[in-house]
């Protein structure tokens, strides 16, 4: 069944090609995009089931393994694929709904569909890649597509925000590429499984340089403080669905790369302290940023940064419990952060703005919207029984198990961040939902069902994580075990 493995990349690319050819026929474009992403979701689910018996490995082009590129669908990759496919599908439906409601004026859909599909292909490629340079290519694909999406419509704000985003991303790409060059020159290979042994054999100093540069490149993508400032300056101006998918997926690809490389290539937690200090400062600086915001989208961007700190905390612990919690939290965070940005888009249509001082009375005027906001907001703040709580609990337990001073500090930091997240979001609720309705500037834009339904689906999905938390958590636990053991991956690629 390994022929399934390349499909999550191939299908979106074929979809992008056909939607480009069909640029005059929006309806056909829509049909192609939706069916491609649905198929991707199905294939990803199959991969998740199949990978339970061990990683699925494909040598692209049939070249003997260390020579060519390998694609590896292990459980971590498959899990990420499933969640990202589900999220991209929901966001696509949402954006179609939005385009259908507003006409194509502001969102040139003929450009949107192919680019969106290319973005998806980049994300899936990054997850599946078993080759360091190909991982870079995956990053490039999704970045190039994201440059297009973030400046969609070409308004002045978007161009300005896009400039920051593009330049910072290019710098991170350059650093990543340089690191790959150095790794190849030091080891003579790019195949990650083969790198395992070869990197272990390098002197400590060389390995530290390589590890540091890779972490830096991924850290920029994942928005780790102090490399995170670009994010809140660039994400919020993009159209709602674009921000949503960026927030949900792009930073997580960076996190995925960190998890993968830190466990597989640079095991043993040599930079654990560094990671944990970064995690703590990311959490706190991020959430303080959120508290200081008066605009919903910006506020959410800061919570995004802040909660990357949680993920890093788990990775920094480098223990089975820590990695398991980090993976679980990543899945949770993809869903919930995307949902909240989609809801922010709905709020913007309803209230004409995302500025908190201009919103009000939504609990009364838009009760459905209120529920759609409240549940994921609680989830993000880590209120039980939602998945955010479960992930946080896992991290706190893992930190307590470690027992050193820094993990304890992070346990405290996690709790504080959770509290401040709740504070920031409850303030949003107080102002936007409870306060007397602000004087309406303009008639609210209609939110078609095709926008509300995918949002609701994601809200439900977020709640569902709680219900299936038992099996899901044991899955992430297995993932963590395999990651730390390294042998399942290495032996599957290089039998």
């Amino acid at each position, binding site marked *: 069944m390994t022929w399934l493995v390349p499909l999550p990349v*191939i299908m979106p690319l074929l979809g*992008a*090609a*056909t939607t*480009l050819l069909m640029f005059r026929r929006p309806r056909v474009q829509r049909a192609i995009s939706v069916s491609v992403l649905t198929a991707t979701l199905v294939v990803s689910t199959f991969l998740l089931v199949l990978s339970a018996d061990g990683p699925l490995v494909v040598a*692209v*082009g*049939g*070249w003997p393994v*260390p*020579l060519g590129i390998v694609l590896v669908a292990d459980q971590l990759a498959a899990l990420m694929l499933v969640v990202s496919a589900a999220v991209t599908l929901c966001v696509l439906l949402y954006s179609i709904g939005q385009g259908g409601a507003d006409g194509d004026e502001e969102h*040139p859909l*003929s*450009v949107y569909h192919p*680019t969106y599909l*290319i*973005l998806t292909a980049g994300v899936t490629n990054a997850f599946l890649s078993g080759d360091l340079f*190909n991982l870079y*290519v*995956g990053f*490039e*694909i999704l970045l*190039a*597509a994201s440059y*297009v999406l973030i*400046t969609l419509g*070409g308004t002045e704000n978007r161009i300005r925000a896009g400039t920051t985003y593009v330049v910072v991303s290019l*710098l991170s790409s350059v650093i990543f590429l340089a690191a790959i*060059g*150095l*790794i190849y*020159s*030091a*080891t003579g*290979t790019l195949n990650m499984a083969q790198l395992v042994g070869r990197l272990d054999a*390098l002197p400590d*100093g*060389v390995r*530290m*340089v390589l590890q*540091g540069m890779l972490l830096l490149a991924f850290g920029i993508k994942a928005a780790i403080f102090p*490399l995170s*400032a670009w994010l809140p300056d660039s994400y919020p101006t993009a159209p709602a669905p674009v921000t949503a998918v960026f927030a949900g997926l792009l930073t997580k690809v960076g996190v995925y790369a960190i998890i993968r490389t830190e466990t597989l290539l640079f095991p043993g937690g040599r930079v654990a302290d560094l990671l944990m200090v970064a995690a703590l400062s990311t959490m706190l600086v991020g959430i*303080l940023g959120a508290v*200081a915001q008066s605009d919903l989208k910006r506020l959410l961007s*800061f919570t995004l940064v802040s909660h990357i700190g949680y993920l890093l905390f788990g990775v920094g612990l480098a223990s089975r419990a820590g990695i398991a919690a980090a993976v679980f939290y990543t899945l949770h965070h993809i869903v919930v952060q995307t949902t909240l940005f989609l809801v922010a888009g709905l709020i913007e249509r309803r209230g004409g703005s995302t500025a908190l001082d201009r919103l009000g009375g939504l*609990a009364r005027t838009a009760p459905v919207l209120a529920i759609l906001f409240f549940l994921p907001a609680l989830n993000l703040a880590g209120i*039980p029984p939602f998945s955010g709580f479960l992930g946080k609990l896992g991290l*706190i337990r893992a930190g*307590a198990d470690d027992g050193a001073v820094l993990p304890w500090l992070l346990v405290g930091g996690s*709790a504080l961040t959770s*509290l401040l997240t*709740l504070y920031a979001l409850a303030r949003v609720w*107080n102002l936007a939902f*409870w*306060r*007397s309705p602000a004087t309406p500037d303009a008639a609210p834009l209609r939110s078609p069902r095709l926008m509300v339904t995918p949002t609701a689906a994601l809200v439900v999905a977020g709640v569902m994580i709680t219900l299936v*938390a*038992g099996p899901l958590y*044991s899955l992430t636990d297995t993932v963590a075990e395999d990651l730390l053991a390294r042998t399942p991956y290495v032996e599957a690629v290089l039998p």
Partner: protein
Amino acid sequence: MLILLAAHLVAAVLAPMLVRVLGPRAFYLLAAAPLAAFGWAVTHREGEWIHPWVPDLGLSLAFRVDTLSWLLMLLVGGVGALVLAYCARYFAPGTPGLGRFAAVFVGFAGAMLGLVASDDLLLMYVFWELTTVFSYLLIGHSGTARPNRRAALQALIVTTAGGLAMLVGIVILGRHAGGYRWSQVAAALPDGPVLTVAVVLILCGALSKSAIFPVSFWLPAAMAAPTPVSAYLHAAAMVKAGVFLVAGFAPMIAVAGGPAASVWRFLAVGLGLVTMLVGGWAALFQDDLKLLLAYGTVSQLGLLTAVLGFGTAGTALAGVAMLLAHALFKAALFLVVGIVDKTTGTRDLRRLQGLGRRAPVLATIAVAAAASMAGLPPAIGFVGKEAVFGALLGAGAAGWVTLAGVVAGSMLTVAYTARFLWGAFATKSVTVGSADTASVRARESVLGPRDHPAQDNHGVGDNRSPGNGGGPGDGAGPGAGSGTSSPALKGGGVEGGPARDAAGSLREAGVVPVVAVTPTVPAPAGSLLVAPAVLAFAGVLAGCLAGVVEGVLSPYHRGFEDAGGVAHLALWHGLGVPLALSLLALAGGLALFRWLPAWKAGPGLGGGVYERVMTGMDRLAVEVTGATQRGSLPFYLAVILVVLIATAGPALVAGWPGRTEFRLWDTPLHLVPVAVSIVAAVFAVPARRRLTAVILVGVTGYANAGVFLLHGAPDLALTQFLVETVTLVMVVLVLRRLPSHFSQRPGPWRRRVRVGIGVAVGTVMAGAGFLAMSARQALPVSVAYPEMAVPYGGGHNIVNVILVDIRAWDTMGEVAVLVAVATGVASLIFRQAQRLSRRGPVESPSEPPRDEPVWLMAGHTVEAGRRSTMLEVVTRLLFHVIVLLSVYLLFTGHDTPGGGFTGGLVAGLALIVRYLAGGRYELAAAAPVDAGAVLGAGLLIAVGSGAAALVAGGQVLQSAVLDLHLPVVGDLHLVTSTVFDIGVYLIVVGLVLDVLRSLGAEVDRHALARSADHDVEQGTEHERRPQEELV
């Protein structure tokens, strides 16, 4: 248990719909859920259920009912059902938001049920937080008023903060015990400082939830909630959770002993007593009946925490009896206040007059409940308090200190109880100056010296808006939620004609007139009285049956080591110290009520600290964000580069090999391109003109191509050369529309910093490169490429085989990048959907004149002054040759230098030449296709060829070699990867075409349009004139 919880959940979900259909009567139906829990508790005494949830986290749905949780289940279910039934009559039909309210209320009851029944501490935490969230929604139910919102947020933050501390405490305990069940934790408590830390953290949770000093302030502020909510929240839910937790942990801690037990007792008892005194004292100064009761609750919670936290069998029994008593009387009293409020329209005891005579039944209920509060026989409150005295008497020095505090607190309790009854029901013959009765003197002594400006704030219960009168939004709350213990009064607004004249003078005298409860106010509806009556008389009944109560509750206090201690529950302990103390408390309390000293205001409860902390936090947030979030791209880049230096630099120094072999070059020829590159780079830095900078950077690229060439990689060199050329042309196209010089030049200081960072980064990178290369031990995989290329890839040009076969997957990704970039350029320039059609060829506007020689198809469309016949002729001659060359490169690339990428670039150059010579119409004539379609077709071919291999049964992107013998052409060596390369070729051509169309042709059009405007407006935009002459 799951069924009971599910019943609550279902009821909560259905509530909005039921309320819509049935109106307030739906509450009767909804009451069935907590009633079921009550019914279960009546018929069962204990039970245990376990379902797995997240085993990896130690989370299970474990429930266990023991004595303590059984008692609380009775209360949660019973009080919940009664309050819900009360709601059915309390709310008028059509009250806005009632469905939402009902749902949250039932959910709240369910969460509370789960909390008390949880056997797993983590599960208990889950419900704990749920009660917090539900109470947030209930308190802020009428959130249109700012104080209500703030009160809700305050309660949420304070209790969640405590809850998170508790969570950490639980994790510590659970980690040590290997599980989170009460029994597991109790069996394996850690010792030493770990236990102390855990105990303090858990107490943080319990005390914040139960509004113990210093965080008591949130509870009175939470009075913003509708009265039935207050009744439930104070009596059975929410605040009782903290007391419950204290009661649950007390036996464990007492058994564990050691310093942790001392810390526990010191905190629980000490803070409990302080709370009891402060709360009771503050209650004495309240004029709002509801607020008076709220402070009373604070005081009682202090008592409960102190007694239950004390940690002996006697206090434990007394404590749970008090817990029961408090639940019964406090719920009853709140419901009474609700009725008073509903019938008279006010809860201000200065405005109520003679209600006792008019509503004797209500008054009787209130007296019965208040007796329990004050500790008078035969109510359970009396029994409990006697037991407390008795238990503390036998508990040594700590007991004596505690006892003193409790007795003092009891006096305050008696005093505010008296004040409550007097305020609500007494007939006060109030006229200023004729203060002849004791009660009025007492009142006056409170109010007389105070100044009451006629300010209109969100004070006592008369700020109801017409929209939600009598509804859940009865919006009373203390001012601004900052722990104001005595909200300022609303001085004006007195109803009734005769009183009006007096009102002014009274206001001047600082006394608020009393509402004459006129006979037109309807008597309270009988059915509303049921719930408080049941509760109040249950309290009396429990008191009378004290022995039975003790029998039922005794399993709890047997958990202590000193089981069988001194205390018993009884109405009559005989003449002894406890009875004396009760009498002392009664007498002292009444005296206090009568001769209350003149105080300007009651004490605050520390809400100011909360405000200050939150304000400080907000300020910190703004400052931190301002410092890190500069909004400056150069700053962000500098941070990234500095981090690069900081991470890689030290590692580099540490890992630097002692002896190094350094070879400067293979041949001295290497010096040439490197020197060129260095010089160009150095001069590019200070360049002021954009064009200069771009060209110099381009030179470094060409020099790089030279390095490739010298290393024997003609293919790479060719590609690099072409890429550099095409890039240069594209950038120049962009530069046409930008000012010729860089607009902002950083100051000298900044320039130095930037140069410093740049040099440092360069040094680090060079060092890293050297280090990495010198560390290589294994052979690179590429060593095997040359021998594999021919048999597996079917080609002799290794570079091309790598690109289209070995690493074709990378190439596929990179062409997708090209497609995205091309699309992006087009989307930026054309912006809107309908204009994107211009991505296609544009029809030439006019026919070519017949009398001129035609070199280019659209040459005539260029202005005469710009035409260059020379260029046109050369273009005419070269175009097809270049295109042919590109196709040649494409097809022979597998064996000789070339390939799809190179070929595509060459073809792109051909298009560039056409565009430069003949402008946008010429471009359209040269490539009469849509750029997007070319890109799409290319991507389809490239990816499709990969997928085709998959369909054919191979691996994705696997190639096959076909050697055909064609009749005329001869032997044909075909490799399927050529198809892939054709896709690449098309994409590159499409990219160049797209860029020319958007950055070239479309920008030309913009410029034309603008210069047309310019001609009309005569030069308003001199400086921003595009630099069209560059091309």
